[in-house]
């Protein structure tokens, strides 16, 4: 009997390996085109025609959890979007996980098409300049007049409204009160404290860790650091790696489970994490830090794809999110702020939480809070973050 491996056996094994590799490595391939034209028009826009003449279909790049009410993907019972799905059906909506702002911007620049995207305020200028989005006709958004004027202003580019704000919140350190000495929990430098080595998890957040390091090195503008400041921030972050257990990539996938199980005591987080972990472990055990350097903050909203065939549907969809009731529900469900200025504090269910997170406070995003801004040298921030991780 021949004892060597037969070609057929080898091929069989190869096929098994190939199948496994295929399953493990399946991914989408995207067409690559380039479009970097900046928009020139500054006049008001309007979208005519009948909504019934448009395809009843929207493809949306969205943060997980924000899928419209009424869709199967929406598992939190969120109200936002329900008025749209009631009218046009849940099956008309298709979602893709936005991942993060950098990822979706790159994907769209590389040719991926979305009707609506949900980026945050620091990226509005990137989107508007890219020529990949088109402005909204605000007259088609009945609730637009209720939105905070400061936020509306941040969505304007060349006099046109490219971005409609919806949700906002803080970013700060969530920590275990029963494990961390309160005297140590006064500053962002808690992320560097060797006392808690192995129990710290920084967010794998691209420019965000650099902005945090920027606060600690005393950078003049954390959103536009000089090359010297960036080098200093990079060294600071490489130093932080010694105490960091892991960089979390998904709040529900890895950060919250690790915090809940006690693997990590100190983590970068958003208000919903404070709410979720408080509910899970008890609010006597968790604290949302107010760092002396100031919290970070974000506002996110909608931009409309340049090539959408259904602009009127897109407007209706956005309206179904920014209306008063949907905004109240957003606050109660996720402990985030909403862009609707007419929401009263009395409408918030958890008054203690609302006070803690300054929900309904018009000064909530004023200094010393560092609201996310456009980063002119973003490619450098990204490059440095890549190097920090690989260092």
């Amino acid at each position, binding site marked *: *009997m*021949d*004892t*060597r*491996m*037969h*070609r057929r*056996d*080898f091929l*069989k*094994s190869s096929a*098994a*390996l190939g199948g*496994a*590799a295929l*399953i*493990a490595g399946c991914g989408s*391939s995207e067409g*690559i085109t*380039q479009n970097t034209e900046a928009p020139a028009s500054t006049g008001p826009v309007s979208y005519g025609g009948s909504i019934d003449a448009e395809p009843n279909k929207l493809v949306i790049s969205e943060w997980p959890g924000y899928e419209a009410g009424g869709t199967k993907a929406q598992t939190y019972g969120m109200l936002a979007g329900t008025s749209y799905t009631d009218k046009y059906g849940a099956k008309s909506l298709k979602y893709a996980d936005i*991942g*993060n702002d*950098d*990822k979706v*911007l*790159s*994907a769209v*620049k*590389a040719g991926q098409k979305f009707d609506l995207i949900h980026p945050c305020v620091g990226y509005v200028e*990137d989107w508007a*300049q*890219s020529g990949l989005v088109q402005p909204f006709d605000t007259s088609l958004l009945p609730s637009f007049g209720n939105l905070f004027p400061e936020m509306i202003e941040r969505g304007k580019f060349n006099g046109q409204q490219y971005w409609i704000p919806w949700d906002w919140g803080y970013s700060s350190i969530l920590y275990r009160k029963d494990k961390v000495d309160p005297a140590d929990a006064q500053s962002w430098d808690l992320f560097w404290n060797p006392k808690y080595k*192995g129990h710290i998890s920084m967010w*794998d*957040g*691209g420019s965000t860790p650099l902005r945090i390091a920027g606060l600690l090195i005393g950078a003049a503008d954390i959103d536009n650091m000089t090359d010297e400041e960036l080098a200093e921030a990079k060294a600071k972050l490489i130093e932080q*790696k010694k105490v*960091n*257990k*892991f*960089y979390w*990539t998904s709040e529900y996938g*890895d950060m919250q*489970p*690790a915090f809940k*199980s*006690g*693997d990590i005591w100190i983590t970068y987080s958003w208000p919903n994490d404070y709410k979720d972990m408080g509910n899970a472990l008890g609010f006597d055990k968790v604290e949302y830090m107010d760092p002396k350097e100031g919290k970070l903050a974000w506002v996110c909203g909608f931009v409309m794809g340049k090539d959408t065939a259904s602009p009127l549907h897109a407007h209706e969809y956005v309206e179904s999110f920014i209306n008063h009731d949907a905004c109240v529900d957003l606050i109660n469900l996720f402990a985030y702020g909403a862009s609707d200025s007419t929401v009263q504090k009395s409408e918030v269910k958890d008054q203690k939480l609302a006070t803690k997170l300054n929900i309904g406070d018009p000064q909530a995003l004023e200094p010393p809070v560092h609201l996310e801004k456009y980063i*002119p040298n*973003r*490619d450098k921030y*990204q*490059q440095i*973050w*890549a*190097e920090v*991780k*690989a*260092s």
Partner: protein
Amino acid sequence: MATAEEASVRPARRRVGRPRLRPAKGWLALPPALYLLGLLILPIALLSLYSVFLLTNLIGVTNVFSLSAWQDFFPSNPFTWKPWSTESVFWNRFTLSMCVTLIVSLVVTTMAYPLAYFLAFVSERRRYVFLFILLAPFFTSFLLRVLAWQVMLNDSGVINSALWQLGILSDGQPLEIFGMGIFRTWFSVGLVLGYSWIPFVALPIFVVLENMDRRVIEAAQDLGASRFMTFLRVTLPLSLPGVIAGFVFVLIPTTGEFVTPQLVGGTDTYMFGQAIQDLFIGTAISWNTGSVLAIWLMAVVVVLIAFSSRFLVMDLREGTE
């Protein structure tokens, strides 16, 4: 002068050269050729363009040919070996990842061999039942299996909790092996990588061992060789093609592995595959640098395949003659 009789027994001239192409059947190759062209060759061509900045999706960077991404990657000029001025963190990650991959492949192959030996020589009639048991976990998703390891290994997971309950470790003190924790460390990455690939390594070794001519082993023992010597001088050399195939099966995919270190690894266990993933769809996006890393990894894998298949093909040919 040859007679007509002689001519009739002269063997027909062997047809040499390339067989005639039959155009009608050539079309059959078109779908796979188009498939390969569209999904393999074209993406590689695009990656090449990105790697030299002829395509870019970086904001504010115009498309001008540049080798800077390649220069930044290599620690020294590949033609002169003169070091560049800056340190290449990605090259360091590449060498580190290759070391980890080699260690994992060696350990996994060493562990898979006794398993395959047991299936082929010891388990007798139940070998296919054991084989089924070995493969049973693979009927579930790879992701689920890795996530299950998270539950097992985390600081308050199944393993640590059991050790606390049994009083082997003091409460709240997580287990450490080789001076490191068992979760979010190289230990957990190696463990889960090994777990994921052991069956794939055991299978080719099992196939070779099962097909082995038992009379050769009997002959060795008849000639006075001990069991150990028989294994060392007869069984092991004859099973080497399976061992090499198994080694390659684990080596090649783990060089680009990114899911396992992402799910059970920590800050230090950042592997080359993760860097590529991050540069394309993660939080540190630079398709130009990512393309350099991806092309380099592909080149390394092609060399590995070429190198290992040389041994395999040689043995396969010998085996079929």
